[in-house]
């Protein structure tokens, strides 16, 4: 049986908040809050809370990047200096720690920052085509709630939205 994806746009952030809260309270049986994706023009943590605890993992990659920067940085510098036979010490391989600290510090930040960025691209689900249900208003001043439900659940859901002064509802049928 076919599924339906429904995008409801709210002008009033509180109503949107309540609507999600209702879904959370399972007022429409079968639709759980985990199916809900909220789209909004700004970041407002306190509104998102209602979606429940959705973890973020970027920092792990950042941490990895930083560690990599330190380890790789030091090994790279050390081996470079050790093989650099004509160091300003005249043929003696020397690994001057003080300057390595400085350089390793920079490399730490360098790799950490890049890892953060790259991981962000994937974890935030960027670099993808937008769903056809996307509405410009979301980038302007409206909050959108996107849910994917079975055919028969669509109506009750819309009813719920209407109770919360929904501005506009878009939906698409999925095979």
């Amino acid at each position, binding site marked *: 049986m076919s599924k339906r994806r429904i995008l409801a746009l709210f002008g009033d952030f509180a109503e949107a908040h309540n609507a999600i809260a209702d879904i959370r309270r399972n007022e429409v049986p079968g639709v759980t809050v985990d199916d809900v994706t909220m789209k909004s023009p700004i970041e407002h943590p306190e509104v998102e809370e209602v979606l429940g605890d959705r973890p973020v993992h970027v920092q792990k990659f950042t941490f990895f990047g930083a560690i990599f920067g330190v380890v790789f940085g030091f090994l790279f510098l*050390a*081996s470079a200096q*050790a*093989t*650099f036979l*004509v*160091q*300003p*010490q*005249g*043929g*003696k*391989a*020397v*690994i*001057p*720690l003080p300057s390595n600290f400085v350089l390793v510090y920079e490399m730490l930040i360098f790799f950490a920052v890049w890892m953060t960025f790259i991981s962000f691209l994937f974890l935030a689900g960027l670099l993808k085509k937008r769903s056809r249900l996307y509405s410009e208003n979301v980038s302007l001043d409206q909050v959108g709630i996107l849910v994917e439900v079975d055919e028969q659940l669509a109506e009750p859901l819309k009813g719920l939205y209407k109770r919360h002064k929904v501005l506009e509802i878009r939906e698409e049928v999925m095979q």
Partner: protein
Amino acid sequence: MSLDNVLNHWADYRKGAEEGGFHDPKGNHPYEHRWTMAINLDLCNGCNACSTACYAENNLAVVGKERFEKGQAMNWMRIERYWDHNAQDFPQQGASFLPMMCQQCGSATCEPVCPVAATYHTPDGLNAQVYNRCIGSRYCANNCPYRVRYFNFYSYYDEAWPEPMQQQLNPDISVRDKGVMEKCTFCVQRIRAAKDKAAMEDRAVRDGEVMPACAQACPTSAIVFGDTQDENSIISRLWKQQQVKRGVAHQDKTDPDLRGYRIFEELNVDPSVMYLERVREEI
């Protein structure tokens, strides 16, 4: 080999001159030679022979009046002339002449700052300057307390040696192009020649076998040059006799009357040139 080096040397910090500079505890890296110089300021009469000999030996460019005025002259060996002694109203004791060239410091300030290691410490204890490696950041010259590094602010090879003057150029060393730092090398090409000769004859380099152009020309023999690794060389005897030690920031002599001293040694750069104080008789 890289790994080998890392494992063997990763703990070798930069050795200060006080530890023998280039030397390390394992004794892996003793200096092969330690070329040093002594200049007796009581004999120097500032006649410029050394400086001109240096021009002849080392392919130094003549820059001309305007560039000389701008301070772009290339005199590796320059004779400084100072007037002040006991504030006489006329220079009662003559002039104070100071032949100043690269002091080949044991812990040279120019070396660590070069971004590409174009200047480094050779196993002979010299500050080598690698013209080809130099990219012209000029940091070394900024960090030289003696201001004895000279930069090729222009290309001179066509202006300074008009046909047929370029035939005089010394083929043992290059003519530096613009953008390269250069300085006194203690006539490294002569050192090289002597070492090769010695190697061919399978013997050590003899004292006095190497003689830089300035020392060879000096009409009053004010400049003595030699290898202090060689215990019996004139130069090492001279340093010992003057009780001047390497690798210290100030000398404590049992005999304070000895005239040997090193310029700016309090900066702990450990120069390889010892000057003997100028003597004057008060009458």
